[in-house]
């Protein structure tokens, strides 16, 4: 007999036990593990989806904020640029004005200094020139020259026009001081006599003459009658010449300052010229006028 009924029963029991064992040790744990994993994956997926949605929302928010910030920044930048431009212009104008005033002051000071220097130079030149001339003439003065000078003086007395002569005569009142004749050197007696003769001719009377030596006359003779003077002297020439030269030099000294100022205006740097294109010529003209 192929079927052993005890074995059949035993195997039936064995199989049922095996079913329980498998259920206990295999299917339940495995299925639970799978379920747990699936739950976990589902939870993670849901979590990820939630996070993604959150991230999406955050991204949207950030994008909006970014756009707003960009706009704000652009506005602020343009405002700042405008403010900076205005400020720049203001500063430039200020700087230009300051530079202009400084330049004007400098030019004024320069021109004053130049003027002063020029005057001083002219003065000194003139003094030196006349000092030299005086010295040279003083060195050259001698008796021969005095004699000639005396002749010239006498000649002049004789050549006096009638008006001057009348005037001189009228000043010489009787009982007045003697007529004073000043000369650089002591006049020798012949010449004194010649002068006395000439004076007698002039006043048509015998008058008292007093002779005096005056070194400041250099070479010359001077006649003084009651405060009126008549004479000839190189010093007179020099004084007249000094006067005329002084007049000549004072006029060119002022005229010289004008070309110098114009030159200064031309020598200003190109940049300054460019930045103040309209300004300098007008000012230089005004300065020239001033």
């Amino acid at each position, binding site marked *: 007999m*192929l*079927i*052993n*009924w*005890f*074995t*059949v*029963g*035993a*195997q*039936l029991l*064995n*199989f*049922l*036990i*095996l*079913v329980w*064992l*498998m*259920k206990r*040790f*295999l*299917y339940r*744990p*495995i*299925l*639970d*593990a*799978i379920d*747990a*994993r699936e739950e*976990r*994956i589902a939870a993670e997926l849901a979590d990820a989806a939630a996070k993604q949605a959150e991230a999406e929302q955050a991204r949207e928010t950030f994008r909006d904020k970014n756009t707003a910030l960009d706009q704000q920044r652009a506005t602020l930048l343009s405002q700042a640029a405008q403010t900076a431009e205005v400020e720049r212009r203001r500063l430039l104008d200020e700087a230009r004005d300051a530079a202009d005033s400084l330049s004007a002051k400098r030019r004024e000071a320069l021109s004053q200094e130049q003027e002063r220097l020029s005057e001083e130079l002219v003065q000194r030149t003139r003094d030196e020139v006349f000092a030299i001339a005086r010295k040279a003439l003083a060195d050259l003065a001698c008796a021969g020259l005095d004699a000639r000078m005396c002749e010239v003086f006498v000649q002049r007395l004789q050549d006096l026009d009638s008006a001057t002569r009348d005037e001189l005569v009228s000043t010489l009142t009787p009982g007045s001081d003697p007529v004073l004749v000043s000369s650089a050197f002591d006049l020798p007696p012949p010449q004194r006599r010649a002068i006395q003769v000439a004076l007698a001719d002039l006043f048509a009377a015998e008058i008292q003459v007093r002779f005096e030596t005056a070194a400041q006359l250099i070479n010359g003779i001077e006649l003084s009658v009651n405060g009126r003077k008549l004479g000839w002297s190189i010093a007179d020439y020099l004084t007249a010449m000094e006067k005329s030269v002084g007049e000549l030099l004072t006029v060119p000294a002022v005229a010289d300052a004008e070309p110098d100022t114009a030159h200064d205006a031309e020598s200003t740097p190109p940049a300054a010229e460019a930045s103040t294109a309209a300004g300098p010529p007008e000012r230089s003209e005004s300065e020239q006028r001033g």
Partner: protein
Amino acid sequence: MPLSPDEIVFWQWGIVQLNATIVYTWLLMLFLAVGAKLITRRLATGLTRSRWQNLLEIIVTAIEKQIEEVGLSHPRTYLDFLGTLFLFVATASLFTVVPGYQPPTGSLSTTVALALCVFVAVPLFGIAEQGLASYLKSYIQPTFIMLPFNLISELSRTLALAVRLFGNMMSGAMIIGILLSITPFVFPIVMTLLGLLTGMVQAYIFSILAAVYIAAATRVRAKSRDPDAGASPEQQPG
């Protein structure tokens, strides 16, 4: 050589005997239970898991999927029974590679026991699913004339289950035994491989047929609820 491991008796006391069938069944049960226990002792629920856990998960989910494909809508209800059927029969034939091993399924007593389990389980699941009256009513469908035929069908298919598995397993063991005596080299190995394949196929057939019977018993109400639920897979392979 013995036709069935039942004939190898280690110990006997009256009707109670300890034969190779029972002993090898215990060994298989021990192997399956200890193996399952060892692997499932530390299960990972995370995304990374051990390869043994992976193997068991593959096996369990494959069985579950097969049950579902047969037409049972709640595979986990039947997983314990059908899965254990498959694993027991498959493991029994897998161990034929071990020399001296006698598959318990090569004993008609074992296959009859398994078939009896199916024979009892089918109406139990059927009644649990659709109630006693409805289940009994299915025997007289479409008419009461079908009642004897349905009953004969119940018995004959149980017998067929038992005999089919027994025949295949026994023949495999017999062929290997005979070949070992004729051509001891190489050829028995080929036949062992063929036996392994046959054993796997038989395990599959046995459990699938049990699933189909259960599906047929639980399907009536589902069919009445949903006419498009598909035809009864009442086919008998092998």
